[in-house]
């Protein structure tokens, strides 16, 4: 019996080497431990043994069975490995670069816009929008810039033909439609539709009839802010602007409010920025945005009682801020869409 079992294990070990597929393994397994298997046959013969022989033989059989199980487990492992290998193919060289395209990226103007909006959201401003084609009334008249006002010379405007009708900006009267020259027109629309108090920022695309060069663009982007409430003061204006500048350009950036003129604010200022961290533009005053208290005439034109309410407004150029933040020296980069530029902001 002992010899027979030893022979059985030896044969099993020998035959196992030839097994290479799962089917062969199943057949092999059946030959040994299947209903008609060799080891099964030995185990069945136990019944013919005497009471005394059984423990001895039982022990031998267990040993043989254990040996066979080990062989089967090793086979199982080997076959699984070869199956996985076949399924996955050759090993990968981890140093090869991925054939997939790299992550995309946001345009630097989008990044700058979101950065600015995030800052103003912290101050309780929410985003408002309006049409890019505006009536002259919304773009100029309501902002205290009537047709014969010299402030209309400050900017050259692109007009749509008389036959053009906008579904988004119906004319009030006979006025022309223009490509908006600033997003202040959104302020007008907000004042006409909402009841104070409110604080809004209006990001958007604007247009001037300008030849394109390093600092001029046929279209550009603005972010304008408006805060209407009772008793809004110049101190509030300074507080808002200080906060914005420190958030955007760091704690050591400083501002000054330089008196200026806009038809829609009184008093009006240009806000200048000075910062030690702006490369070759460091440590000098740079004009960043226009701002002021909303002119009472504008409030009245927009149907807000100027005796009860006052407001502050400001507007900045997105391109200008992005150029300062990233050290970009030519506004045309924003519109050329050369990936060697765009990927720098990934």
């Amino acid at each position: 019996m002992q010899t027979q079992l030893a022979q059985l294990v030896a044969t099993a070990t020998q035959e196992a080497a030839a097994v290479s597929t799962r089917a062969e393994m199943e057949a092999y397994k059946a030959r040994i431990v299947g209903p008609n298997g060799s080891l099964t046959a030995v185990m069945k013969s136990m019944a013919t043994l005497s009471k005394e022989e059984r423990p001895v033989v039982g022990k031998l059989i267990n040993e043989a069975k254990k040996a066979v199980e080990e062989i089967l487990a090793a086979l199982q492992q080997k076959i699984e490995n070869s199956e996985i290998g076949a399924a996955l193919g050759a090993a990968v060289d981890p140093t090869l670069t991925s054939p997939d395209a790299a992550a995309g990226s946001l345009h630097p103007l989008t990044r700058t816009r979101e950065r600015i909006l995030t800052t103003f959201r912290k101050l309780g401003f929410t985003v408002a929008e309006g049409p890019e084609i505006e009536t002259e009334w919304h773009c100029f008249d309501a902002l205290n810039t009537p047709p014969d006002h010299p402030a209309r010379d400050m900017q050259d405007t692109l007009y749509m033909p008389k036959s053009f009708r906008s579904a988004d900006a119906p004319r009030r009267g006979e006025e022309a439609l223009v490509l908006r020259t600033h997003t202040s027109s959104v302020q007008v629309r907000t004042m006409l539709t909402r009841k104070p108090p409110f604080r809004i920022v209006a990001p958007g695309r604007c247009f001037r009839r300008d030849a394109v060069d390093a600092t001029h663009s046929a279209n550009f982007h603005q972010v304008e802010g408006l805060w209407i409430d009772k008793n809004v003061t110049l101190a509030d204006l300074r507080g808002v602007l200080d906060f914005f500048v420190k958030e955007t350009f760091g704690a050591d950036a400083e501002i000054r409010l330089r008196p200026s003129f806009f038809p829609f604010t009184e008093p009006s200022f240009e806000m200048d920025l000075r910062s030690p961290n702006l490369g070759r533009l460091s440590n000098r005053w740079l004009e960043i945005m226009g701002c002021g208290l909303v002119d009472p005439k504008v409030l009245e034109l927009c149907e807000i009682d100027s005796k009860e309410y006052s407001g502050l407004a400001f507007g900045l150029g997105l391109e200008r801020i992005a150029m300062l933040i990233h050290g970009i020296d030519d506004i045309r980069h924003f519109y050329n869409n050369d990936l060697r530029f765009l990927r720098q902001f990934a």
Partner: protein
Amino acid sequence: MKVSFQALSRHVELSGVTPERLAEVLPMLGLEVESIQTFGLAPMPLVVVGEILSFEKHPKADRLSVCQVDVGDGKPRQIVCGAKNFKANDRVPVALPGTVMPGGFEIKVSKLREVDSMGMMCSSEELGLGKGEDGLLILTPQKPALGTPLNKLYGAPDAVLEISVTPNRGDCLGLRGVAREVAAALGLELKPLKIKTAADLAAAPSAKDAFKFVRSTSEFCPYYTLRTLRNVKVGPSPDWMRRDLEAAGLRPINNVVDITNWVLIELGQPLHAFDAKKVREGIEVRAAKVGETLTLLDGKKINLEVGSCIVADAERALVLAGVMGGVESGVTAETTDILLEAAWFRPGEVRRVARRAGVSTDSSHRFARDVDPAGVELASRLATDLFIELAGAQEVGPAVVVGKPPRADVTIELPAGFISAKLGAVIDDKQVEAIFTRLGFKVSSSAKGFSVVVPSYRSDVTRPIDLVEEFIRLHGSEKIPASRPVAPLPGDSDTRSSTFTHEAALRLAGAGFTECCHYTLRDASEIERTLGASGVTQLALENPLTAEQSHIRASLIPGLASALALNVSVHANPRGLFEIGVVFRPQADGSVREFLSVALLTSAEPVVRSWKSREAFDALRAQRFVSDLTSLAGIASSRLSFTAAESGLWQEGHASLLADRGRSVEGGCGILDLRWTRQLGIKGSVVAAEVFFPRAAFGEALRTPRFEAFSSFPPATRDVAVIVPSGVVASEVHSRVQQAAAKAAGKDFALEAIHCFDVFSGPGMAEGTKSLAFEIRWRHESRTLTDEEANRAMGVVIATLEKGAGWTIRK
């Protein structure tokens, strides 16, 4: 406006004030200083007078001369020179070695083409004296001594500040106005104007006058004065006047023109001089009549607009009022008698007329900014002084005046505490009084605060809020305190479209697309490709600047396609690009609507080779992006319908158009027209998608999802393959199967979903047919469905579908 420091000093004592200090002060008053330039000869002690003793051609350079120059130091020096305009014994300025020229260039002993040169002989321009004649500045006529420092021949240099004056500050378009600002800011006294001509006025011309009548019948000219000046000798102006004009950037012409220009610079009041002999009978300011023309001084002949304001004589138009004179009545060398006009024209009308005529003059610029009516008569008298003094004129009688000044000083009632309330800080009454007094305003306390009298030269100050600005300008904006941020208002939120814009951008960037940004203004050919010829008409600008930017865009795809082509050409290895922005689309009713467009585009295959290939980006993946973007906007993808795209930007048979008619959402996706993208230089196909969202699509707030319970029992699934004629579109089969499966479920259980898992045509199928296979999934809310129930439902589905004409079930 160019402000000469020396000229400004005539109006306000500036000893102890440097031009640099002024350049710091003026911006904080609202007068931006764009540059400070030295006018005249800067101190250059090493530039001296020399004499060219002899010269000969440079041995190695045809254009150069080798000169022997005596600068009075005993020994002639050799200097190589490129100029041609001199002769032997000419005296010229010589910059000795060590001189730093106005451009910052230092003169050194050097060799020019191997010949020693011991200095440089200078031109007018090189010395910073402005563009003179070509070549060296020849000093020979003045006979200066050799070795004299050039600075001794010229007066002290002046500084000219170029200031930009905002449209509200017409008063600062004259030196007097700028001087008032400086005096107020620095606490200095304004020097009085010295005018000899008396301030007497007449209501009608006398026999001595060179005109028989003067009148204004124009609403645009409420105030007009005219005086006669006889025996004027036209000739050059004195040096000081020429200097002042040049410092202000004007070209001296003759004493008559120069005097009117000089007064304009001085006081900001434009004047006009007529040759009295050319004026027939008298002057009338009136509206232009039909068919009238005028040849302006610059030679341009214009057809006058009926009704626009002109100055005329008894017969014809002479002057475009406040803008520019005509050639026929202008002053010439032969002029002896002059009519001097000083008037006030309505700002808006002058601006309008000047713009319409396409001219902008120093005169129109000032009238359009509301000149001081009180300055009209003053300017006329100052000019008269000068005509008498410099041109030998004899004044005849007083000025004849028609009308009266249209506005005078203004009294503003400033409520107590108004300034403090606008500033957000408490301001003492004494400070308010002191500042307004410095500005030349008269302040008196009233019962409710202050009464402030603002002189007529400050037409921009009429309301209490304007006084706040005046106060801050002088008080100093740095003294405005900063409030602490105020808490946000509850319930306010960003517009949905702005939130969507950013979320969509993040999503597309995350999917590997790079965001682009293109100009809104495009050329006509692009619009024609996008919308056809009708779009070209509908989206044209009225006044485009260039032909490349003549239309507003209707799609973002052409821009993206050109960006892809660009990046292919520069080897930047492009793949996916996207853009989000506003486009303009003509509507059925003839109007044009703005849409927020989200567009993406990618080459189907990577444009550079890779060690491992990837599945191409196909039209179906583009469609997936379309569905995802619309659902991000809150529009269920089930609302979208797709139809085959036939033309335009898209490749026929490989692209589709989408629409949600209810919300006017439109778009397209698929392969771009291959001929076009190949023309752009892109090999392989380009896959794109674009969705147009009207603003109204973002009208409502996003629905807050409500939880719905779902069954915990397994579904029953069945497959059905439908054979239909090839022309039947998938969406039709899909909806029929869906209806049938829903109907089959009855009221007892429910259809959960169906989806198409196989599309087949070819071997084994009848010609002109195709098979679409769907998996149907039913589920019961509270128990497991039995096989019989599912089979019975399946029987209903088959029976229903087979009712379709030409439809069979594949067994």
